[in-house]
């Protein structure tokens, strides 16, 4: 079976989630690989969520928020713009390709941009291939993550 990337998308409620909604009602075609999780702000996306997504089998994670200056909470996405590059450095240290984590700004009116981001990111992850981590080893037998005796 060919590889279908599993991607988790954290979308801010005010811009990007609405942008994704617009893409839907406008019937713009986009790859079905992104599992969207709505958050109140891209600044709400704790680094823990992103590591957890990789732990549970995501091949890529995309965080989308309002353009800089447009944040509903004024400063939220400025936290994100510092957090994501920081986290990219950390996952690189963990041996995960930093391209598997992406930050994009998508406003409520940019349905076409949402579709473009989803499509290009899906293709990029498809080219990178499945993410295989130590922590996944025990899960193939349906066990809890990492429980298997890996020496």
């Amino acid at each position, binding site marked *: 079976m060919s590889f279908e990337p599993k991607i988790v998308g954290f979308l801010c409620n005010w811009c990007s989630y609405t942008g994704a909604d617009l893409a839907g009602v406008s019937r713009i075609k986009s790859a079905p690989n992104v599992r969207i999780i709505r958050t109140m702000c891209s600044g709400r996306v*704790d*680094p*823990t969520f*992103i*590591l*957890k997504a*990789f*732990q549970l089998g995501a091949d890529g994670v995309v965080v989308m928020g309002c353009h*800089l200056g447009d944040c509903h909470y004024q400063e939220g996405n*400025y*936290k994100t*713009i*510092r*957090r994501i*590059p*920081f*986290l990219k*450095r*950390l996952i690189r*240290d*963990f*041996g*995960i390709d930093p391209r598997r984590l992406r930050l994009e700004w998508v406003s409520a009116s940019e349905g076409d941009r949402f579709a473009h981001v989803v499509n290009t990111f899906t293709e990029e992850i498809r080219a990178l291939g499945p993410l*295989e*981590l*130590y*922590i996944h080893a025990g899960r193939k037998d349906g066990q809890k993550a*990492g*429980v298997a005796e*890996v*020496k």
Partner: protein
Amino acid sequence: MAKPKLALYWAASCGGCDIAVLDLQEKILDVANIFDIVFWPVAMDFKYDDIRKMDDKSIDICLFNGSIRNSENADIARLLRAKSKVLVAFGSCALEGGIPGLANLTTKDRIMDWAFRDSPSTVSQNGGVYPQTHTKTQEGQIEIPEIWETVKSLDQVVEVDYYIPGCPPQPSQIWGVIEFIMSGKPLPEKGAILGAGTKTCCDECTRERKEKKISRFFRPYEIEPNPNECLLDQGILCMGPATRDGCGALCTKANVPCRGCYGPPPNVIDQGAKMISALSSIIDAHEPDDIERILDQIADPIGTFYRFSLAHSILRRVEKS
């Protein structure tokens, strides 16, 4: 009434946890009065066979320090689990892998090559002499434990009842736990963290804090820290915001940043992720280039943020490449 039985063991650890028990000072005599110490390799002469001969669940409390790094650590962890009513992961290593857990940054092969072939102090001939798990001698076969690829915390190998964090746990906290257990009060629910607080190290720290805005990070040798101001405010990486309280902020009192040994605070599963979250909020930059420049000043994020907790973090080890 027979005295309750106490066992102490060290797996992959430095011995500091055992020293911390001895640091109870004269109260160590009370420990000996209250308990019948049945096993304590660092201080008393018992053999593994003494434990094997015991009935299951015959040890009342086992304080287990050290991470699980080789087959011997794991065998004894399983043995003591079977023989103990209450198994306590004692200290950072047992709790979350500790300093030995940093071996998860690399691979067993690289560690062995460095230790037995490549390090400047090793005289290696014919490509180095590596330890073998089985060696035949005239007297018979000698076995030594097999080192693992990945270091684990105690609870990744056996079920653990309670946790006491710290590198090492503070003697006053150890005594507090012993007193609590001996008071006969009902024990807390399984999995509880004992001998520590429920906030962060910052809550115990007495340094003066301002609104944090960091535009330059310093490594400790690059700066003479002001003894009264928050170290993080001064640009020194201090793990306080992502570390559980309970130690009394000993390090910051000595003008040294918190290293994070008490592990993540309640409801935090990954200390490094939390530290990134905290630092991202206080870095004073809005442009990508400025942000990258400031992040460049943080040497070794993974080794700093997961100094004690790598083996127990969400991803647990660096991928082999």
